[in-house]
């Protein structure tokens, strides 16, 4: 029982960081209807920004978070302007967006490998070593930080989406972009804000991930898991992304704990395919109607 509770705690901590990454995929999908595969690379850049703000600039860790979030928000917005805006203006199909995103991801990842190099880097120790013990359950300090910081960010995001005018505009745009434009919503602004938010959350997620493990150029590939979470929960749905991420985190830790870590990725992708076959719109996604 204690072991199960321990796995549960680990799962929630991993799940919370997946959630932070998954909402970035979901937000963009909800507005623009494509899977932004460059998101993983932005997360990786966030990890490096956090690392260098702490080591080169000597910033305290909370300032490193803010620096990384601002940096990645800027990167995401610039990426949107340079790479996706021309496609939007041309009304290109989703495929061109996906391939462009893939190209951007290849570009960013290899740019980091070519300039900084592929060697993993360790974050300076921020939290005291040794877990906090609750009876038999050990809770790593970094895991706790991951959970708390993710929860705060996600709560702030939900409040923003639900209770501000801009949030309402985002919801309207995701419902129907053309109609929203006709109603006087500045959809260009909405897309700008969505990429900025997704980018900022990616930066924070990257720093957390780097603190928990290491900083290396291939972090972006690992974030594919959070994309699964977004699909599992329903692409385009925020609560879906949260739920999907927590479920995926729990399943992963339970599989690693009781079966073998080698089957972790296999099970994750099996879940993805099963969900797509049974219910492509995910747990909480909009019903994927045929727009033919």
């Amino acid at each position, binding site marked *: 029982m204690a072991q199960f509770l321990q796995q549960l705690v680990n799962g929630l901590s991993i799940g919370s960081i997946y959630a932070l990454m998954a909402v970035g995929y979901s937000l963009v999908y909800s507005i623009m209807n494509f899977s932004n595969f460059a998101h993983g690379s932005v997360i990786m850049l966030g990890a490096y920004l956090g690392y260098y703000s702490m080591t080169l600039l000597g910033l305290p860790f909370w300032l490193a978070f803010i620096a990384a979030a601002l940096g990645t928000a800027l990167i995401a917005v610039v990426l949107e302007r340079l790479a996706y805006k021309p496609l939007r203006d041309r009304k290109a199909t*989703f495929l061109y967006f996906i391939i462009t995103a893939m190209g951007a991801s290849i570009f960013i990842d290899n740019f980091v490998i070519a300039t900084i190099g592929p060697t993993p880097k360790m974050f300076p120790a921020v939290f005291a070593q040794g877990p906090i013990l609750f009876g038999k359950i050990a809770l790593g300090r970094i895991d706790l930080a991951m959970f708390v910081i993710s929860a705060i960010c996600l709560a702030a995001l939900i409040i923003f989406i639900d209770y501000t005018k801009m949030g309402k505009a985002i919801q309207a745009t995701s419902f129907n972009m053309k109609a929203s434009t006709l109603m006087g919503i500045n959809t260009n602004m909405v897309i700008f804000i969505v990429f900025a938010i997704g980018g900022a959350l990616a930066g924070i997620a990257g720093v957390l991930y780097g603190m928990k493990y290491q900083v290396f150029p291939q972090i972006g590939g690992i974030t594919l898991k959070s994309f699964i979470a977004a699909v599992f929960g329903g692409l385009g749905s925020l609560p879906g992304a949260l739920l999907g991420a927590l479920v995926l985190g729990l399943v992963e830790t339970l599989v690693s704990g009781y079966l073998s870590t080698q089957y972790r990725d296999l099970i994750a992708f099996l879940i993805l395919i099963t969900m797509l076959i049974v219910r492509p719109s995910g747990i909480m996604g909009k019903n994927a109607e045929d727009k033919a």
Partner: protein
Amino acid sequence: MEYILGILILSAINLVAVLGLSVLTGFTGLFSFGHAGFMAIGAYTSAIVTARLHLPFAVGLLAAGLVAGIISIGLGRLTLKLKGDYFCIATMGFGEIVKPLLNNWKWVGGARGWESIPKYGGISLLLPFAVAVIAVILSWNLINSRQGRNMVAVREEELAAQMAGVNVLRSKMIALVFSAVLAGIAGGLMANFIGFIAPKTFNMVKSTELTIIVIFGGLGSISGSVVAALLLTVLPELFRAFSSWRLVFYGLAVMIIMIGRPKGLMGGLELTPTSLRKAAAARKAKRDTAAATAEGEKR
């Protein structure tokens, strides 16, 4: 010399895989990010047949295509009904499932890969080129057949094609199986000419690379795919000296093409002797009319 031959063989292998995807993506309008999975299946099948069962290479290649094709039928039944993005994601999931399965299969080397697969020299070195030529002829005949026209109809407007009596699911299935068989054979060629395979070779980047080649050549053009496959295999090899910057420019080039020339190299046109003659004739006719009107104005 051997180096050049190696690059040429690699181009031929890539071409075989790309031709299948050209039919699937360029002519039927289905996008896959998982065809490296079919290549992996073909590579391991051929390796098992030649290294473990000690059968001839040709049998290995046929088995590679056959196994990949059968698995694609299963995948197609489950996922071909999905729309747009979701089919793409499902194929990506398929590709990513093949990898951990092979990683955990110790009998074929597991995650560290499988060395000492029989390599073939001498006259067998012509095999990739022969397969590539056969693949070109098959693809060309397929897209110019009734079935091929059905595929284009499905790509252009699925609902209308269905109304006109095209069996949409069947057309998609034929395209998928065709592309999977070619990817499987390409994988088999790869295994037996490189002599080493590892699951991580067949990752999502490889799948994306194949799709990018098709788009680079121009959707809906077999000759475009051929030119792009040769170009995009040879060019990166030439720049191997700048190894770390190579992929940086590759990513940049992909973005620029998507934004700047979405129609790709050929833009849906074909490069054949007839089309060249037609283009020359059209240019001549234009010149003649221009001259005639100029003369008319003079009068």
